[in-house]
């Protein structure tokens, strides 16, 4: 009895230890990122890959919210765009050193999302989707209408400094180096989210997702953890928006538009959000399909529409989910044999 209690106490205090494998995977992922530009060679493909990785990060944020809170955001472009506008405006008005501006550009959308989250995580899932769409579009409209601050529809070029953390600014403007930076950050984000979902906090939010009422009856407040999860997913979206702003050196209301939110969601759906890296895979597929579509890009929205319907109906777990399921089945039958 007392031994059992001791074990349990130990179990409560120590967070589940990360396996060596997960550290190894992180190291491999980062190494691949450094090696890939040399292998690929083509600047065009690298440009595409850089876009895909930034889009993938936004999608990972959306997917994390689906996985952890069980709700679908149609407005994550808001946090992506607020971050991009933040860095743009801060640098334009030269109010802060660039490094501080970067931190603020991540902190502002995250905090805004947390406060908004306290309100909107309380509504049922379908209404949550509706509200995120409305909120996202409200930001877009604001950027369009508040001409004096944002220069409206035209947007503005971001005056970038010459160096960033001691590195020449070209690091974030050329695909060869920016790809490595974005890829590494994406790997770190996914790793960080992996640590989060395995932590007691992650387990708790999963429990709340599964059964909010029972979670309350075993003694948990449920709004705060869900709002925190929403804020964390907004942080990931904000990081993507920040990278986008640095890479493009330009910001316009497009970064807040719901078609961007929708694209990110579609990447998450195609890739599957049960696995944290699924949405990133979805993003790569999304961007290469878009590139392949070539002359047909005029009808790109409809093609995406058809894709999302087909994936939702035929492959609800997404590609990564289906792969994982297949893997699980193979392992099981292998074990039996």
């Amino acid at each position, binding site marked *: 009895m007392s031994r059992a*209690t001791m074990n*349990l106490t130990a179990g409560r205090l120590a967070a589940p230890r990360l396996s060596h494998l997960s550290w190894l995977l992180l190291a491999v992922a980062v190494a691949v990122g450094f090696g890939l530009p040399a292998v690929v060679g083509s600047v065009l493909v690298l440009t595409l890959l850089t876009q895909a990785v930034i889009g993938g990060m936004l999608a990972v944020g959306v997917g994390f919210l689906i996985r952890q809170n069980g709700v679908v955001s149609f407005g994550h472009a808001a946090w992506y765009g607020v971050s991009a506008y933040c860095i743009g405006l801060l640098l334009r008005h030269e109010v802060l050193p660039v490094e501080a501006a970067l931190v603020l550009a991540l902190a502002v959308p995250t905090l805004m999302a947390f406060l908004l989250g306290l309100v909107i995580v309380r509504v049922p899932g379908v209404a949550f989707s509706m509200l995120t769409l409305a909120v996202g579009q409200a930001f877009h409209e604001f950027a369009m209408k508040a001409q004096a601050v944002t220069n409206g529809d035209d947007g503005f070029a971001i005056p970038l400094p010459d160096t960033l953390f001691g590195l020449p600014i070209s690091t974030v403007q050329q695909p060869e180096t920016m790809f490595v930076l974005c890829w590494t950050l994406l790997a770190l984000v996914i790793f960080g989210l992996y640590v989060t979902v395995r932590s007691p906090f992650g387990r*708790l939010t*999963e*429990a709340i997702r599964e059964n909010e009422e029972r979670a309350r*009856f075993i003694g948990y407040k449920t709004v705060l953890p869900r709002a925190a999860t929403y804020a964390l997913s907004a942080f990931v979206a904000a990081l993507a928006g920040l990278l986008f702003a640095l890479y493009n050196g330009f910001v316009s209301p497009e970064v807040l538009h719901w078609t961007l939110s929708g694209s990110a969601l579609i990447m998450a759906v195609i890739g599957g959000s049960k696995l944290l890296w699924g949405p990133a895979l979805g993003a790569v597929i999304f961007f290469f399909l878009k590139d392949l579509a070539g002359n047909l890009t005029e009808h790109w929205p409809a093609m995406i529409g058809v894709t999302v319907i087909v994936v939702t109906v035929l492959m609800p777990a997404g590609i990564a989910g289906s792969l994982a399921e297949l893997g699980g089945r193979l392992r099981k039958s292998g074990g039996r044999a």
Partner: protein
Amino acid sequence: MNGGTTGGFAIQGTALTRPYGGFFAVNKVDIAVPHGEIRGLIGPNGAGKSTLIDVLSGRAAVWSGQVRMDGRDIGGMSVQERRRHGMARSFQKTNIFPELSVREQLDIAARQAEKPNVPEVMEELGLTDLGPARARDIAYGEQRRLDLALALIGRPRVLLLDEPAAGLSMRESLNLATLLRDLAQRWKVTVLIVEHDMEVVFSICDRITVLQLGRVLAEGTPDEIRRSPDVITAYLGSAA
């Protein structure tokens, strides 16, 4: 174990009223359960049993009347605070975390408990071997026990059970009844139990309260209730 009249009441509702649609699901109900007692709550469908449990547990707001635990008014307490004060409940429909493993969800419940007792609860409810199993994959009877286990983490002082034996076979029901009786005695838990299975109710309850159309029709020991002409006409008549 008939006593418990000394030392106040573990859980007490006074003049509880709760409207539902155009009528009162619970209408000026007085109920007081002394420490350590197992109280049965029976009555025909729509008598207000589940609503009464909901009001006592804080799932439904108190519309008028008072809810007290150990003499203290808890009507304004959130469900989380009630849990911290030693109140726990189970649900009529199985209310678990289907995608989490049995052990995982009990551990999560234990993080809110002052004295976590996961291995003990798993042992008592026969869930020890099911730790790593996903809750949705285990048998229905096991899910019902898991539901009860979630309520038992931290050894609550007051346990409100809404048809814990619903859907169980006769044998499973009786096993559960014996287990409840035994646990309540050893852990000194006060239990209020809504149950349709009369055999379960009459075998484990110290006293029984009968509700009909939102009002208390009768209250007494199982023998008194069995013999009460009112109850026989209103409720048992058809079953007997």
